[in-house]
């Protein structure tokens, strides 16, 4: 018996669970309710409501990815240098919240930011004016940053831990200042980590409907919310599939761009 046959159950599963479902989306996205071919479901992205949702999704995903990167990079540098206890333990503390149920973590911010919630009670005690953050795009960005920050910290930290300390020491010996070491060594050598961190924050932020639903109070429409509604409440699967295809295109483009960045980064180093 050839070993190849071991893969048969998997291949069947791959066909049934990945290939056919993808074909289904393609089919629904390119046909109308009667089953006739149409591009309307794809072109529907140009309708103001859908286009705006996609635009807002891209904007919020971009903002939260940048914030995550700005928070995570210094953190990873500090963790790399730190001798705070054992190496495994300190990083463990920073990724522990990731194992907490994602919905509970998002819900926590709803509880905190609610009108008359803890956040505003604290502000009132400090004699500061109340801030309405809940149900605004700011709350959604906050939720994205909170939920996905560990996904940015870990890959950057891993990439930095792979940098040989002797390279950094050699740079200092050769007269490089701190900023030169950061610019010429730490940053370029952690680009593979940064690239995978960006993917892991940007893609879920771009496609989420949960965070915008919980922290946007049903008033913030991201492309994920539109698609989800087409499949649940409005039951227009064709439109939902068409818009998903458009969304996938944006995911593929952004990932291809990041892959190129990753390769360039390694190329520069060599």
């Amino acid at each position, binding site marked *: 018996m050839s*070993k190849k046959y*071991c*893969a048969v159950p998997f291949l069947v599963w791959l066909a049934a669970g990945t290939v056919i479902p993808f074909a289904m*989306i393609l089919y629904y996205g390119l046909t109308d309710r009667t089953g006739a071919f149409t591009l309307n479901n794809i072109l529907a992205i140009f309708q103001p409501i859908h286009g705006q949702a996609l635009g807002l999704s891209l904007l919020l995903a971009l903002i939260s990815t940048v914030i995550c990167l700005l928070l995570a990079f210094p953190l990873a540098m500090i963790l790399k240098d730190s001798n705070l206890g054992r190496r495994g333990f300190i990083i463990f503390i920073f990724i522990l919240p990731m194992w907490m149920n994602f919905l*509970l973590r998002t819900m926590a911010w709803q509880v*905190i930011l609610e009108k008359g919630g*803890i956040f505003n009670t604290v502000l009132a005690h400090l004699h500061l004016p109340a801030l309405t953050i809940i149900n605004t795009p700011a709350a959604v960005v906050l939720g994205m940053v909170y939920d996905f920050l560990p*996904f940015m910290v870990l890959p950057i930290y891993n990439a930095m831990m792979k940098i040989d300390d002797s390279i950094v020491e050699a740079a200092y010996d050769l007269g490089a200042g701190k900023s030169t070491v950061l610019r010429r060594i730490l940053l370029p050598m952690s680009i593979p980590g940064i690239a995978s961190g960006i993917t892991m924050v940007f893609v879920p932020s771009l496609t989420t409907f949960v965070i915008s639903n919980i922290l946007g109070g049903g008033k913030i429409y991201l492309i994920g919310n539109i698609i989800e509604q087409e499949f649940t409440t409005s039951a227009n699967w064709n439109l939902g599939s068409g818009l998903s295809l458009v969304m996938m295109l944006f995911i593929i483009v952004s990932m291809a761009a990041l892959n190129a960045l990753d390769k360039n980064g390694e190329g520069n180093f060599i």
Partner: protein
Amino acid sequence: MKKIFTSVYLILILLFLYLPILTLMVFSFNESKSMFRWTGVSLKWYREMFRDSQMLSAIFNTFSIALVSAAVATVIGTLASIGILAMRKKTQNFIMGLNNIPLLNADIVTGISLMLTFIAFGFYLNWGTVLLAHITFSIPYVILSVMPKLKQVGPASYEAAQDLGASPAYAFWRVVIPEIRSGIVTGFLLSFTMSVDDFVVTHFTRGAGINTISTLIYSQVKVGIRPTLFALSTVIFVIVLIVLTIANVASDRGAEEDDFFYEVAQG
């Protein structure tokens, strides 16, 4: 000066990460139903949680699906790794490309595509369809954990065992499996975690009848948060803390679980 700055930075990030969770935990002990008034310490919401039949069945569904899907995915994925490595390089690359689709794709697309398929083929959406969906997104993780180990081991010891008179099945069971055990364990744990944590795919494939912990939270958040959810948060956090602390302490001795931490986080 620099030291103060870095400490302040670390503390601020830790507060940002943990304050929301701590808030939920504190309010789980509040006697009042209102989040805005503290009327005294009580365990009432914990009692109510354990009497809530919806909550209990959601917990049961979550763990039964996670356990079965991780087990099935581990078997299929391990066998698949062996089979794929026996194929020609070109075929390997093609199959691995397909295998990566669910890993890279957005959850929402995986969810709706599976939902469309289940409905098109006349499946009734229930516990079983959620299970099938979870197996589907778990297999790639198993393959990605087992395949590198298998490559590392190489065919030599398997062939040696057969030269010494072992049947292929015996050689596989006694020689190959022990050598790739750490990859298999990692794959299983990854699948289990992914399944417990999943909301989006479950949301689209569950139908109306069943809830997992995640879908129950989602529906309750939409109609109004009850303090039983705070009690649930506390219980989940404490369990996660205990399990991961044990795993972390254990991983000091071997690097296996360490890999697991990073791989889970790498998605």
